């Protein structure tokens, strides 16, 4: 995949695997959902999972938010995977392990499986060892189904396994097979066991009946055998797992679920939206409280006592909670679920020489290695608690490290990533951009969603996805002066740029950081010297020519209408799809989908007549629907000018028609085409 700009868009830069966001969004806009899936899967084998649960740093860094709101990238991703299932199955391919070397991956979470997939694609023979009956690690067991349905995860896993990876389920290393045996049999070993165990707390009463640990709790819930909870449930912890635990607990029917954590509301590590959704579901949160003791009666948990937490982090931002023992509170509860942190189970390394220090695996993050040659590490066991997509990223890293090791026998120090992003969208540019509402989906009503573990979030409909995709600013793919351009520094671009972006210093320059990719400068450049990296309209004539050359002129149903349509008006891919030659011949309508017809230059309006068109019809967006400031006025003036020219050359200005979409593209466009055809027949009859 070719990057359109050497500068990363901030969304791609923020993504741990640097998904080429603007490209998959562009492909959605042009109706190429399959192409969009290709872009996603190239870097992220867990695209289905991420479409559901990714914490979407891409959105947090989306430059559109200075204008109105970020683009709904996660839901766009979900839209892609949900609308390309057949294609996804078709594109699966087994890769023969031609390299002959064998790799064992311990753990089948996102990091282990990503590494397995990369290595399999390189031609290694990969075996994944999973102690459970299902692949996926935390994704399979610790994320409640209302957030991540099993099917979504399974799609991703099936893709990976289709490469020819062997999986050994219900096979726990250290029990069912020894680590030492693996060392003998495999050329490299990857430890990607994650942090699958919860920490407990050394406080009085912790042994009472009614105390549970977060991860095992989620595990049991996911596997359909939830533990019995009392009527009043207390969840200790303020992270995302704690939220999952609380929300899962809520769905098991207790009358009360309360969360308590050391952190203040602002300090809580859980995502803001997760906290809000939990509250909607009736979960209350007690901030700045630390558990002091579990109250018990006859070995049964009856309540919990808290002390005031006055500080969570010290001056060095290290976790170092301080308490005011004099301020306490206690509550009557029947169950307490501890979700205060996770650790790895490294028992299988006990009798090996792989270094473990106080329960932690000794590893070098730069090379993804453990203390023993040929043993590698990735995922949360290396990084500590993190997101799924971050785990995927370390999976890619470790695969590179292993490949390098197997090829050269040397350890690869992964280079420090240095990413040059396009930078923030300057406020003065943003102020000139048009606002467009973000398409939001409505979650299932809170009262309804706490009843069971059904997914709570609907995906985008096709119309919604297309509408949201148009909001992408296509950062960094805007106007550039073509190397061959004879820029005379005429300032036309400067004068018409609606956003005050273009400048001329000897020659024109449209700084990528500011350009909003409207393409108006390209349409007006008298030297025809401005190119657009994305959605280029520079070669419209050539494209038309090649299409029409392929068609047989006699077969084309006359009159031939070349119709430029604003692709952003499509609510389905009916018209976004490329036309077949015979379709053009039979209908006499040649559609050219343009991202904003305002970027069509005068030559684009006139040249179709040269290529044999009888009519050129321009279909713009609906009234006030244009994404781009100023495009409507410039287009209108350009059409007037082109009509005068067409009058002059004897074609007649009326042959150039202008329409505005109303209702939907699918409804109004065919009507316009009919009008174009009939109107022309009337003219030629007269």
């Amino acid at each position, binding site marked *: 995949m070719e990057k359109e700009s050497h500068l990363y868009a901030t969304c791609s830069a923020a993504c741990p695997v640097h998904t080429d966001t603007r490209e998959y969004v562009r492909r959605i806009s042009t109706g190429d959902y399959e192409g969009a899936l290709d872009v996603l899967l190239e870097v992220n084998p867990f695209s289905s999972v991420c479409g559901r649960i990714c914490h979407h740093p891409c959105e947090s860094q989306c430059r559109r938010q200075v204008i109105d709101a970020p683009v709904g990238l996660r839901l766009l991703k979900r839209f892609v995977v949900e609308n390309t299932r057949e294609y996804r199955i078709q594109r699966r391919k087994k890769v023969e392990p031609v390299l002959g070397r064998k790799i064992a991956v311990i753990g089948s979470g996102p990091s282990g499986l990503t590494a397995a997939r990369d290595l399999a694609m390189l031609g290694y023979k990969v075996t994944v060892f999973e102690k459970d009956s299902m692949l996926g690690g935390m994704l399979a067991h610790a994320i409640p189904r209302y957030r991540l349905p099993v099917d979504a995860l399974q799609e991703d896993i099936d893709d990976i396994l289709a490469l020819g990876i062997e999986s050994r389920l219900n096979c726990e290393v250290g029990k069912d097979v020894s680590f030492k045996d693996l060392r003998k049999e495999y050329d490299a070993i990857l430890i990607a066991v994650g942090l699958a165990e919860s920490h407990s707390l050394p406080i009085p009463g912790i042994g009472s009946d009614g105390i549970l640990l977060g991860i095992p709790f989620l595990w049991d819930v996911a596997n359909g055998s939830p533990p019995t909870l009392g009527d009043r449930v207390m969840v200790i912890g303020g992270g995302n797992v704690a939220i999952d635990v609380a929300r899962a607990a809520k769905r098991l029917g207790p009358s009360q679920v309360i969360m308590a954590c050391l952190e203040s509301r602002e300090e809580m590590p859980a995502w803001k939206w997760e906290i809000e959704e939990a509250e909607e579901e009736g979960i209350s949160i007690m901030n700045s409280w630390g558990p002091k003791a579990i109250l018990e009666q006859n070995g049964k948990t009856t309540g919990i006592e808290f002390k005031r937490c006055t500080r969570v982090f010290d001056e060095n931002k290290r976790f170092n909670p301080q308490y005011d023992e004099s301020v306490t509170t206690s509550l009557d509860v029947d169950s307490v679920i501890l979700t205060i942190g996770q650790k790895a189970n490294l028992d299988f390394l006990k009798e090996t020489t792989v270094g473990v220090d106080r329960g932690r695996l000794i590893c070098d993050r730069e090379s993804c290695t453990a203390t023993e040659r040929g043993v590698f590490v990735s995922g949360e066991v290396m990084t500590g608690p993190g997101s799924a997509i971050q785990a995927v990223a370390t999976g890619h890293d470790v695969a590179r490290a292993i490949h390098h090791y197997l090829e050269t026998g040397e350890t690869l120090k992964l280079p420090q990533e240095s990413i040059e992003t396009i930078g923030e969208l300057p406020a003065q540019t943003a102020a000139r951009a048009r606002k467009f509402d973000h398409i939001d989906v409505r979650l299932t009503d809170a009262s309804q969603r706490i009843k069971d573990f059904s997914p709570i979030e609907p995906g985008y409909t096709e119309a919604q996805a297309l509408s949201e995709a148009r909001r992408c600013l296509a950062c960094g793919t805007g106007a550039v002066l073509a190397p061959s351009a*004879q820029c*005379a*520094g*005429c*300032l*036309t671009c400067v*004068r*018409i740029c609606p956003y005050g972006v273009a400048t001329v210093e000897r020659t024109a320059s449209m700084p990528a950081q500011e350009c909003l990719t409207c393409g108006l400068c390209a349409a007006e*450049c*008298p*030297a*025809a*010297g401005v190119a657009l990296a994305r959605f280029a309209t520079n070669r419209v004539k050539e494209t038309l020519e090649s299409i029409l050359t392929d068609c047989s002129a006699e077969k084309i149903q006359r009159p031939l209408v070349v119709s430029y349509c604003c692709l952003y008006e499509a609510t389905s891919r009916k018209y976004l799809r490329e036309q077949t030659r015979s379709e053009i011949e039979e209908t006499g309508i040649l559609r050219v989908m343009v991202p904003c017809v305002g970027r069509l*230059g*005068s*030559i684009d309006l*006139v*040249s179709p*007549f*040269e290529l044999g068109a009888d009519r050129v019809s321009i279909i713009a967006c609906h009234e006030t629907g244009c994404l781009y400031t100023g495009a409507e006025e410039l287009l209108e003036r350009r059409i007037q000018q082109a009509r005068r*020219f067409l009058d*002059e*050359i*004897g*074609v007649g200005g009326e042959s150039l028609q202008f329409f505005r979409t109303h209702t939907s593209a699918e409804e109004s466009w065919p009507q316009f085409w009919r009008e174009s055809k009939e109107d022309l027949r009337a003219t030629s009859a007269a």
Partner: protein
Amino acid sequence: MIVADPKPFQEVRGFLENYRKILILGCGTCVTVCLSGGEAQAELLASGLRIAFKKDGKEVTVLEDTVQRQCEQEFVTPVLERVKKEGIDAVVTLACGVGVNFLSDRIGAVPVFPGVNTTFYGGNVEAGLWSEMCAGCGECITYLTGGICPIARCSKHLLNGPCGGSEKGMCEVDPKNTECVWQLIYDRMKLLGRLDEMRNLLPMKDWRPAMDGGVRRTVREHIYRLSYKSQT
């Protein structure tokens, strides 16, 4: 810079009745800047001509090209070679009149037609508007008039204006659009504290440095006909 306007299409079309392979030649400097003869305009004219010829049932090849400046030997030479090599039998240039002459002087038996009307030396007053500001008279007198040229900008080229046709700052010849330059000069001299100079009689101008003195040429001795260049 030099400002030009596109010629009416049919006028250009009229030049080309008897040719079979025509080159439309844009110019990348002044006419690009004033949006009348750059690459985009060349493409448009070429496209228009192809449509018009086709409509008339004529088989004519219309090619397009643009050079940086048609008033330079080095830039024009490749075009001349192309014309010869490809058997082009007529050229329409969108450069100013200089380009038409420059090509005609060098192109041999192939006719060169003007695609634009060269209008004036002017400045871009605002987006889409150019205004005449210099007449190329060969002896600049603007040091006497606050830097504003009455020869180029007064409808009657008065040197001791304003005449009686100056009303509310506008010129009677085009009261809607044209400012009375003598009003501008008056205001500017006032601003510069030089209003007294407006009492001076400006003598009749010596028009020899202007085109009235015959065809003008300029030689820069320091690089003109270098001997080592002529040897090779």
